[in-house]
C-alpha cells in the first residue's frame, strides 16, 4: 500500500510516495526504484540512471551516503502534523560545548557577524555570531557552562 512521506534535509522538503520498491517524488518525473544490494548498500534507479548509496537509521533521523557525501534526513508521514525545525531568532551551540566567553547582555545592539558567545568543543573555539543586525533580547548562558545543541544561549529580537 502506498504511503506518503515528507522528507527534509533541514533546508528543503520533498513530498514522497513509497509503494514497495517504487518511489515517486512530487514535482519530479518518473519513478525511483529503490532496491537493496547484496553488499548492504542500495541501488536507486531513475530515468535509466543507476546510483548506489548507503543508508542507516538513527534514533531521530535517517542518514544516507552517496559518493562520499552524507546527508541527514527527517521523515514524517505526510498525514502527521509534526513540522520541521523552524528558523527562529535563537542562538544555539551546534554541538555539546563549553561556553568560553559571552560578549553581549540583554539589550545589546549588535551588527551582523558580531560574536555573541564563544563556545569550545574538541579543543576548538567557535564564535556564535549575530545572523543580522539586531538587539539581544536575553542571554541564557554563562562562562564555563556545558551546553547542548538544544540549549538556547541567546535570544534575539
Amino acid at each position, binding site marked *: 500500500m502506498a504511503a506518503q512521506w515528507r522528507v527534509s534535509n533541514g533546508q528543503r522538503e520533498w513530498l514522497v510516495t513509497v509503494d*514497495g520498491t517504487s518511489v515517486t*517524488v512530487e514535482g519530479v518525473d518518473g519513478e*525511483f526504484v*529503490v532496491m537493496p544490494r547484496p553488499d548492504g548498500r542500495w541501488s536507486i534507479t531513475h530515468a535509466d540512471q543507476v546510483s548506489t*548509496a548507503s543508508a542507516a537509521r538513527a534514533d531521530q533521523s535517517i542518514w544516507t*551516503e552517496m559518493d562520499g557525501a552524507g546527508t541527514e*534526513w527527517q521523515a514524517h508521514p505526510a498525514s502527521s502534523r509534526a513540522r520541521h525545525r523552524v528558523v527562529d531568532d535563537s542562538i544555539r551551540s551546534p554541538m555539546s560545548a563549553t561556553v568560553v566567553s559571552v560578549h553581549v547582555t540583554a539589550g545589546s545592539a549588535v551588527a551582523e557577524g558580531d560574536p555573541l558567545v564563544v563556545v569550545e568543543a574538541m579543543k576548538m573555539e567557535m564564535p556564535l555570531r549575530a545572523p543580522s543586525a539586531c538587539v539581544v533580547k536575553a542571554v541564557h548562558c554563562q562562562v564555563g557552562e556545558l551546553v547542548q545543541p538544544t540549549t538556547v544561549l541567546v535570544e534575539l529580537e
Partner: protein
Amino acid sequence: MMRRVLIANRGEIALRIIRACREMGIRTVAVYSEADADAPHVMAAHDAVPIGPPAAAASYLNVPAILDAASRTEADAIHPGYGFLSEHAGFARRCEDRGLMFIGPPSPVIERMGSKTAARAAVAQAGVPVVPGNTPKSQEAADVLDSLARVGYPALLKASAGGGGKGMRIVRTEAEAAEAIDAARREADRAFADGTLYVERLIERPRHIEVQVLADGHGSTVHLFERDCTLQRRHQKVIEESPGPTVTPALRERITQAAVAACRAVGYVNAGTIEFLVSGEDFYFLEMNTRLQVEHPVTEAVTGIDLVRAQLLVASGERLPFRQEDLTMRGAAVECRVYAEDPSANFLPQTGLLLRYREPQGPGVRVDAGVREGQEITVHYDPMVAKVITSGETRDIAWARAALALRGFEILGLRHNIPFLLALLGHPDVRAGRIHTRFIEEHLADFTAPAGDDAALAQVALAAVMADAAMSGSASPGRAGETATGIDPWSTFGPVAW
C-alpha cells in the same frame, strides 16, 4: 630491545604503534579514558589500563596516572604518539628518571625545540634560515605590541609552546592587535597551559614543506625527503603529499641538508620533522616537531621505510638499519585527513554514532583509523576519524586513487569532510600545485558547494524507503529471502520510534 611498550595515546596512532610493536614481538599496553573503554586501541593491545575521566587533562595528559600504569604493567618503554604528551619535556624527563625508555628524543632536546624561540636560535646558529621575528621583552600587552611594531605588519602572533595552529593569529593592522593578543593568549593558555607569545613576520603566500628525519644514538642522521603540507585550514593540515609537487631537485638538496644540519646541531635522536615555509626557492625554518607526525604514512609510502619500527629500534639503542644513500623516493603518495566536521557549517566539529562505517580498500590504498562501526564520536578528543593514504607510480595515479577511495568510504551517522576533500582533490589549482597555505581560506566557496539535485533526489527516495520500512516494521517488498552474502540491509531496522 624493549619488551613491553605502553602507548600513551588513543585512536589511530595508538593502533599504528601497537601494530608495529606486535610485528617486532613487543608486548603492548594501552591506556584509556572512561570514554574509550571499548575503543579499538584498547581491544588491540595485550593489556589495557584505565587512567581517568574523559577529559584529556584528566586522562591522556595525566602524567602520574600514565606513569603508574607503566609501573603496574611493568612496561619498559613509553610511546607518546603525537599530540597529548608527545612534546612534553617534563613527561619525557620523568620517564627517563624512572628508567623508562621514552620513544622520542632526549628530554633536553624536546625542551629546547619546544620553545620556538630557543629552537630558532639553535637552528639559525647551524646556518638554517629563519623567519625574521621578535620576542617581546615581557608578556605585557604593551611589549607584545612593541614587538609587532618592530617586526612590522602583517605579522604573525604565535604561542611559544604552540602547535597545530592553536594560539596563532595573523595581525594585519595595529587596530587588530589588542583583540588578537587576547585571543591568542587565551587559546595558548587553554591548549598548552602556557600563554607565552612571540611575533614573526608573515611570509605571504608560502608553501608549507617539511622534512622527515631519523637519527640514532650512534651519530647517524638521515632525512627521508620532504612532504608538502600546504593545504591547510586554520593551520590544520588537510591534505599532505610527497614528493612536493613544486620542489626542484636543487631545492630538495638544500632543504634536506638544512634539516639534517639542524638535527645535528641540537643532538637530535629518533624521528622528527623540520617544518619550513617555502616561497619560491627560498625556505625558512618554521619549527621542529620532536615526534612522529600525523602524516608520516606519506613518507612511508614513498620510501618504503616503517618509521615507527625505526623509532623503536633507535629508542632501544640500536643503529638505524639504513644509510642515507640507501634511501630513495619511489612514486608519489597523498594523505587526506577525514574529519568529523561540517564543511557547510564553517567546519564545526560533529559528534554522533557511527551507524555504518566501511573503509575503502584497493591497490595503493592505506587507511589508518581508530574507530569502528557502532562507536560514538565524542566531544572530548580531536575530530579526526581516519587518514586515507594512497600511493602510485605517479602523482596522478595516487590522486586518482585518493578520489576513488574517498568516494567509496562509507561513513554514516555524522557529518564529515569527505565532500570537501573530494572538491579539493579535483580543483585545478590544487591539481597543478598552484597553492599556498591560505589557499583554502581564500577559495572556500569552491569547496563547500552542496551536492547536485540528482544525487539529492535519489537519496530523498532512499530516505523515504528507509522511513517506510521502519514504519511497517516488516520485510521489504524488494527483498527476495536472505542474500548471498548474508548481509541484509533490512535487518538493521529496529522498532519504529517516530
